[in-house]
């Protein structure tokens, strides 16, 4: 409601009542001045006209050239009053070009205020809240009713109350058993006991969290350009848990804003800092880094100010705030808290943009410790085994052993230990016939190119001095390959020897990348092929990470492959400990055991080629431990966290809000109009900021918080503009109540559950919402609370209710967002080609029926449910949702497969509940609305059902279609005609105004 209109309204009441109470500046006058005058005569120095400010008494009373704008008690002597009433276009205030105009009522109020002494008040929200006389919600609400000519309503009936409480606290309707239990409880305190059951439910956290996630602008994608997936759902789950654990609001605040700066922060405190990583970020090529660092800090400072202080600080990005006493310097000082962010300007379109934290489930550390234990046990076995090996260094023999030709076999019956073998085109097989050596060969076959290869997993193979490679090939006589190839990987696949036709278009001809080693081997016999290592570009000492056997246009068998090289045992690192030790680079050496005995054991276990076979089983055991550990590790999600750079960035006032126009330098600080910041160190940091926000002397935080919770339960805040507590925001309808709640909240240790309990157990909350039309026309928004709250359910509640009532709901909590039913072409037409969220891949089974808080949020193409039912797309913080009423909502609730399938599951339950139509309708009403149906309702719905039964009896094939919409299969035993008719009836009931409203 327009604060101006409220003011006028109040004054009208004042005029009509017998005794006019004195005007109050904040309530009656400030809204008029703020709307019409402050833009030019307010706080913003640059815009100020005629050196006059009207937002302070000093400014307004000051004489210039012998006249003052306002002379207390004397409108005629006040220049402002004269100009307001002027008829000259160049003189009248506000000037015509401002498009502002004072109406007669506003003028009358101003005149009266001057006559009464033109007293000023500091803006109410910047004064610390104090408890005034009176106690409890109902006291303050009741005392405001008479002056508004309103009377309180009686208490709502129990079914209405339990649904209101259950929906409000858990976002789910009550189960029939819960309703029955409540109806049966005739002892005093039944209502409170019912409330306490819902407060204790784990679904309390989910319902509370979704409101805060709007504030936190939580989404599952980055939000800009590619709009790729972002993994930070642990933050969402943290919010749910925090409400369920009833984390005090001060702690809730400090952990989100500065959890990383707490001493030895826990994992959960780090996850909490994800709050300020939830903003949209870009990874768009071409972006200017400086600009985005600037924007993120602006966004985070604005969101923090908005969420906790109810201040629309971003106005001061470009200039001093026109209405609120927040200068550009104030804003950039706040921004400075966030400007040294460690996260990058461009998110890299990555799932995880650093800094992130691993979100370890309970028991994770124990599992990792077990891996470490197993690892050290195997390592000890290796050490022990190495200690038993007798080794003589050839370099220390006298005489030294001669230089010898040595054969190193790289492939025999299998690829080297640990190799991750892959194939192209088709799977390739190891066979036992034909075989050139050992027990197996590998057959490689393809109509085009085909290969078997590995490039990771095994130890590197070292090419010896004067290396000459050999391999055995049997070209299949029935289907001979046209080309045979061997390839080596040394980081890249850049070494190839080929025999036969040069068909495969890889590598540059005339280099080692594509070396023609000879003719195609004759078919039907084993041929030993040989080539110099140098001819494929492999020098002595080259490290081979993998190799491949390749054919084209046929089949060939490959067997025993290796390299023959000349070796000087006393100079060969794979034979001589001394030679190896001397060749170690410093970095390598530093990582190894210091003393020689340990170093030798390492050598024998890992390097010496005489013992590698001995250690192979233990190596395999070690590899397995590491693989399992890696699997567990990669299955553990991470979450975005907020950190500062080690060296902070200097922050400046950015002239006109332009990222490349730095002005005055600023340090982290809070707005001057509010209490001063207490710094723990030399410079303020986010922890100081967070503590300042929840300090008892901060006039805003507790008020803003209790008002938001009030809005959540009553539909509208005591300050209607719950996002704006500044001078442009609405005045509180019940200022004393707001302050009483704020002070009580802080006194009770910022106990959020306690506050919710206080709200819902008030008589005010328990009033019935049904009222005669005079009540609705007297107070359409129910700001004076003469009725119980009645408003449309939110998007999530509507879907969750349908799923709950139908019994389809899956109440599993937390984890990665899921993709339920969604019409085709929501993501695809808007998605960028390279985006990993371009194609919507619907989930199955439980994914279709999880609570809506767990639906994956793609911010540039939100789910139509969110779009249609006013859920924000989470691009920016949202403190208060709209509640619209549109035809698209009607279409969705009637026709969406999610809702129609739920209606069918609901219908199946209705059929099972009772064979009689009236009893079925009674059941359906109790399940959906918590109340029974009256006779007229039973009659109307019975008549409808009868009509549908007749219609489907005539067209049973239509009935069949109607009950097969959606993944859920109908029970075979069910009467299809009945189910189809009752499905539409269930659809009707779920579409009742009463069903989509909290009554």
């Amino acid at each position, binding site marked *: 409601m327009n604060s101006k*209109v409220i003011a006028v309204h109040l004054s*009208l009441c004042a005029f*009509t009542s017998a005794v006019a109470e004195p005007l109050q500046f904040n309530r009656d006058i400030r809204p008029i001045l703020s709307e019409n005058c402050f833009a030019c005569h307010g706080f913003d120095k640059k815009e100020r006209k005629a050196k006059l400010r009207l937002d302070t008494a000093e400014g307004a009373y000051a004489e210039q050239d012998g006249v003052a704008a306002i002379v207390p008690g004397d409108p005629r002597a006040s220049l402002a009053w004269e100009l307001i009433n002027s008829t000259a276009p160049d003189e009248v205030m506000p000037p015509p070009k401002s*498009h*502002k*105009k004072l109406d007669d009522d506003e003028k009358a109020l101003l005149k009266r205020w001057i006559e009464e002494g033109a007293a000023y008040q500091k803006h109410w929200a910047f004064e610390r809240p104090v408890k005034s006389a009176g106690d409890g919600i109902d006291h303050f609400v009741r005392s405001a009713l008479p002056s508004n000519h309103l009377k309180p309503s009686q208490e709502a009936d129990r079914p209405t109350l339990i649904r209101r409480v259950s929906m409000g606290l858990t976002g789910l309707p009550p189960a029939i058993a819960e309703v029955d239990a409540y109806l049966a409880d005739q002892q005093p305190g039944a209502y409170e006991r019912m409330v306490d059951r819902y407060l204790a439910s784990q679904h309390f956290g989910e319902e509370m969290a979704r409101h805060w996630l709007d504030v936190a602008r939580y989404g599952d994608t980055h939000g*800009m350009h590619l709009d790729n997936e972002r993994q930070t759902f642990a933050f969402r789950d943290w919010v749910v848990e925090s409400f369920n654990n009833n984390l005090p609001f001060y702690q809730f605040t400090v952990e989100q804003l500065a959890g990383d700066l707490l001493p030895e922060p826990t994992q959960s405190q780090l996850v909490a800092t994800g709050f300020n990583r939830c903003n949209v970020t*870009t990874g768009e*090529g*071409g972006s*200017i*880094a400086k600009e985005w660092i600037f924007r993120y800090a602006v966004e985070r400072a604005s969101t923090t100010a908005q969420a906790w202080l109810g201040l*629309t600080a*971003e*106005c001061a990005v*470009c200039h001093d*705030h026109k209405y609120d006493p927040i200068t550009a310097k104030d804003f950039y000082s706040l921004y400075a808290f966030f400007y040294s962010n460690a996260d990058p300007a461009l998110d890299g379109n990555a799932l995880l943009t650093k800094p992130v934290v691993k979100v370890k489930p309970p028991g994770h550390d124990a599992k990792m410790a077990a891996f470490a234990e197993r690892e050290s046990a195997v390592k000890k076995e290796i050490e022990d085994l190495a200690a038993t090996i007798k080794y003589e260094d050839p370099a220390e023999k006298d005489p030294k052993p001669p230089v010898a030709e040595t054969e190193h076999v790289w492939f025999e019956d299998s690829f080297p230990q640990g190799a991750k073998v892959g194939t192209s085109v088709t799977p390739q097989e190891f066979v036992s016939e034909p075989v050139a050596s050992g027990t197996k060969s590998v057959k490689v076959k393809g109509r085009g190119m085909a290969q078997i290869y590995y490039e990771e997993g095994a130890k590197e193979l070292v090419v010896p001095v004067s290396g000459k490679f050999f391999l055995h090939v049997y070209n299949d006589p029935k289907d001979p390959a046209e080309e045979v190839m061997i390839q080596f990987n040394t980081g890249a696949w850049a070494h190839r020897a080929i025999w036969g036709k040069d068909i495969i278009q890889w590598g540059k001809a005339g280099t080692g990348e594509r070396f023609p080693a000879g003719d195609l081997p004759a078919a039907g016999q084993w041929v030993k092929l040989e080539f110099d290592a140098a001819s494929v570009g492999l020098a002595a000492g080259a490290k081979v990470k993998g190799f491949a056997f390749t054919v084209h246009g046929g089949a060939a068998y490959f067997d025993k492959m290796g390299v023959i090289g000349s070796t000087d045992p006393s100079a060969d690192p794979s034979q001589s400990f001394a030679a190896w030790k001397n060749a170690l680079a410093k970095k390598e050496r530093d990582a190894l055991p210091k003393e020689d005995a340990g170093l030798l054991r390492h050598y024998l276990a890992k390097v010496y080629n005489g013992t590698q076979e001995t250690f192979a089983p233990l190596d395999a055991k070690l590899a397995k431990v590491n693989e399992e550990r890696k699997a567990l590790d990669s299955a553990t999600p991470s979450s975005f966290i907020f950190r500062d750079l080690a060296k902070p960035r200097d922050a400046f006032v950015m002239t006109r809000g332009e990222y490349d126009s730095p002005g005055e330098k600023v340090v982290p600080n809070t707005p001057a109009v509010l209490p001063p910041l207490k710094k723990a160190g030399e410079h303020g940091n986010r922890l100081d900021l967070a503590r300042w926000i929840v300090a008892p002397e901060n006039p805003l935080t507790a008020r803003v918080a209790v008002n938001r919770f009030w809005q959540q339960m009553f539909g509208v805040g005591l300050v209607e503009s719950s996002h*704006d507590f500044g001078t*442009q925001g*609405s005045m509180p309808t019940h200022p004393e109540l707001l302050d009483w709640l704020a002070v009580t909240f802080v006194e009770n240790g910022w106990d959020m559950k306690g506050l919710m309990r206080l709200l819902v157990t008030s008589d005010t909350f328990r009033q019935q*919402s*049904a*009222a*005669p039309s005079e*009540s609705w*026309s007297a107070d*359409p*928004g129910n700001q004076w609370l003469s009725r119980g709250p009645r408003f449309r359910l939110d998007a999530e509640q509507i879907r969750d209710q349908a799923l709950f009532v139908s019994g389809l709901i899956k109440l599993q909590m937390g984890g990665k967002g899921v993709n339920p039913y969604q*019409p085709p*072409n929501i993501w695809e*037409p*808007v998605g*960028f080609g390279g985006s990993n969220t371009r194609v919507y891949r619907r989930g199955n089974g439980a994914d279709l029926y999880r609570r809506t808080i767990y639906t994956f949020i793609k911010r*540039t193409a*939100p789910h139509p449910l969110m779009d249609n039912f*006013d859920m924000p*797309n989470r*691009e920016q913080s949202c403190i208060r949702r*709209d*509640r*619209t*009423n*549109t*035809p*698209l909502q*009607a279409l969705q609730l*009637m026709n969406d497969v999610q809702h129609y399938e739920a209606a069918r599951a609901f219908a199946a339950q209705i059929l099972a509940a009772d064979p009689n139509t009236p009893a079925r309708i009674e059941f359906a009403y109790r399940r959906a609305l918590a109340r029974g149906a009256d006779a*007229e309702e039973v009659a109307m719905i019975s008549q*409808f059902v009868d*009509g*549908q039964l007749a219609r489907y009896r005539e067209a049973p094939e*239509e009935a069949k279609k*109607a*009950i*097969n919409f959606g993944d859920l299969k109908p029970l075979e035993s069910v009467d299809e005609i009945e189910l189809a008719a009752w499905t*539409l009836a269930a659809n009707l009931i779920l*579409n009742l105004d009463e069903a*989509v*409203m909290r*009554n």
Partner: protein
Amino acid sequence: MNPLFEQQLLQTRRQFFGDTGIRLGGIALASLLASQDRSRAGSVVHPSLSDLPHFAGKAKSIIYLHMNGGPSQLDTWDYKPDLHKQFDKALPKDFLGDRITTMTSGQGTFPVAPSKYTFTQHGQSGRRVSELLPHTAKIVDDIAVVKSVYTNAINHDPACTFVMTGSEVPGKPSMGSWVSYGLGAETNDLPAFVSLVPNFPKGSNAQALYSRMWGSGFLPGKYSGVVLRPGADPVLYLDNPPGVSPADRRAMLDTLGKLNQRGFAKFGDPDIQTRISQYEMAYRMQSSVPELTDLSQESKAIKNLYGERVETPGSFTRSALLARRLVERGVRMVQILHRGWDSHGNLPSELGNQCLDTDQACAALVTDLKQRGMLEDTLVIWGGEFGRTVYCQGKLTRERYGRDHHPRNFCMWLAGGGIKGGVEIGETDEFSYNPVSDKVHINEINATILHCLGINHEQFAYRYQGLDQRLTGVEPMNVIKKILA
């Protein structure tokens, strides 16, 4: 004025705008009551604000053809014959400035790439048009070309947000939302604001669209554009479930309506009446939308005018014809968002296909509207979110070149309702790098659009977060008088 009267007004406002906190500067209270009477009568589903239009505007509706990705002004409208002499020469440093995307800022050189296309003169105005737009060339006397539009953003996401919401920061309402909020619509059977998202040529470099381009931002959600989708289901959830006939739905709605009326008698909440009427609107849309998309009554001549792809669902051509049909039925704003105009690399091939996909239908739309006498009160706008650089991105030959983003000047055209045909304003320098006359900010285009609708853009405000928010932002913006009829 008495308190009861005052309270009735409040009630009206609440019903009227939904449950939201609406603060609009300077609405005359009496006229609010008038709009209440209109909505009560049930004759107007989308009423206008009572103080709108501010004056008699020439345009009643808007068709906005948005070429998403940034069409090259140098290869379409901004004729620079002398650039051939500059082929492959470096763009002088004085021109370059420092706000260059990092896609080309790392390039050592900025060689000039003249357009490979021939520009010939057309119409009585003798307007030069690129050979890529042979059909649009035939309507040059009906359109006003602005060659000097500029924007603040250099990347797609912020620039698209800017052109459609008047700000590069997400969260503001789209133009269509503003317009349907202000003016409502003249139909009871269709939404006030409709978006079409057609297919686009394969192989083009397609940038994303963002739902905020038709979203309602901080305005109530009912002002969001309704996306008419290309496939079988043009409005989401329009079709009844299988096995549910229109008669079944009618029967269900009859019972639902009666039960909801009883609910109204019980609760007294006026919102229940709104819900009843929205369910009825939904039912009407179930027939009005299929009627809209059924082109069987369109003559062969009209189909030929638009081109053969008019029969292809999801084509730009079909979307253009649908746009006319929507406006004909009283829809306030139609937006066609055509993707694929981001020609960084092989511009001639990509841009050629983009023009081929859209040129005939754009011209046909204007011609069709004119033939029916609808062009007088329908404002058509064509443009992208920015232009493209004169210097080449990537490999440069006479035949093949690419162009980076260029926010400093680009071309848009406007036609119909309130716009003077055959006009061209805004010269650019010899490199089409900066405007030298009649510089037009993108929000001045928006101010002009509002002006054509009879809206003073400075007075058309919505109070949100302490500011009188406007489509055209807080900086002063002027209506482009030179192109007004």
